[in-house]
């Protein structure tokens, strides 16, 4: 699963590497490891969801717990990435009015 996702995300890093003025390869070098981490995390989460679905019929409680863990596994990195992206917009010590 993770390997398949990494191959899919390879297209994105490939497109980034085409950016002009020499920043393409540099950005691709940065996004490549990120894509690897993302594919590993997402692959583990999706795998856990499939396992949970398979167990719904036989052990519903275990399946529900596993689904929650898988959702957290996928959601937490995305939330962290979003928080990281939004951070520079808000100056330190500033409060929303």
């Amino acid at each position, binding site marked *: *699963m993770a390997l398949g996702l990494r191959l899919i995300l*390879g297209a994105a890093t*490939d497109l980034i590497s085409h950016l002009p003025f020499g920043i393409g390869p540099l950005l691709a070098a940065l996004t490549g490891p990120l894509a690897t981490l993302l594919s590993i995390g997402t*692959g*583990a989460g999706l795998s856990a969801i499939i396992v949970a679905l398979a167990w719904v019929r036989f052990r519903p409680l275990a399946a529900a717990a596993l689904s929650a863990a*898988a959702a957290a596994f996928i959601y937490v990195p995305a939330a962290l990435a979003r928080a990281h992206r939004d951070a520079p917009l808000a100056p330190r010590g500033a409060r929303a009015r």
Partner: protein
Amino acid sequence: MPRPVTAIVMLLLSSACAQDLVRSVHYEYRPIARGRGGGGGVGGVVPGVGLSVLSGVLLWWNEGRAVRESRMLHRLLPSLVRLDADSPPDPTHDGRLVHLSGPLRASGLVDPEWGLQRQGVLRLRRSAEVYQWREERTETSQRVSEREVRREVTHRYRRTWGRVPVDSSRFEAPHGHHNPEPVLPVGDTTFTATDAALPGGIHVPAGLVAQLSDYAAVPLAGAGLTQPKHLPSAAITGVGTVSIPFQQRGAALSRPLPPGSPVQTTDDVLRQSGEAGGRTGSLTLRPAGAAASGETPPLPVLRGPPPAPEVGDVRLRWSEVASPAEGVSILARQGRRGELLPWSDEAGRGVYRLVRGVASAEEMVQQLRREERAKKWLARAAGCGGAAPRRSCRPYPHLSDLAPRAAQAWLSDCGSSSAPPPT
């Protein structure tokens, strides 16, 4: 998406170390990629989608299989009948899953081709190996400029014993590394006792006996090995080895023996009970009288250091599984005449198990559960892709070109990484 054009600029064949090393150097035109982000690029999308779908199918199938296996193992114990191995088979238990523990006995086995007889053993294995050339290929790549990569391919040749014949015509340098056809088929030949039984008379079929696999070497001196007519040059050259020189196919031993090597027949060895003083030098290996009487002559014993092997030589070794002194334990279905057959549930999942030693039914079921758990997690890891090949983390040739040391250190870390388990 421009692909790097490969051009062989130079081909260098160097034959060093008496033709045991062939090295070729290629210079490939492979400019530092500007259009490769890694992961196979856009062309990797379709394989990526396919691989993800396959992984999902594998995970789904594995969970279903695990559930069925778990249910079957849960049902085992309540339906199980514990029998006494000393008692004769009871027809009332026909068709039921039974558990038995006790000593396993068999009359013994014979290797008919070589006349080796072993009393009381459950399995006998003859391993034939051929001394042959083997090719090893190593490849190294090194970027020499922004446009070229130097690729060095080295083929090494060495002689080793092997159980699978190697086709030397496919070698990079077949000349001087020819592997002749072995004088007899190489590989393993296994004999399994078909008359094994428990003390009560319950017959244990070969399918169960074959689950014992802890082999021990068979000493050959005095084991009754006979000389095959088509291999007159075969001789016992060690405690448990029969050597068949390639050059003497169908002829008497013609390779010069090491000076002072005593050669004795098996009869001589038995008669003199290990005492030195056999005949030396080249001699007729057949014992006097054996050929005249028409009996199959025993295999001669070559004492002293064995001659150095040559390509094409074949050696034979025997190993056996003796009846376990601690007995065996069995889980199987009792057939009509007391025979033991594979047991299976409605879903087709079955048990047919023999283990060494006395183990209770609960212990055997526990062992089955452990094995099933290992299989389940192995398939989960494969489906999750946590143990992804190193290649998946190594799609950044331009990165390693820009910052070789740091990048390679990171990539080596990345190659050994694994995803957390899904549950």
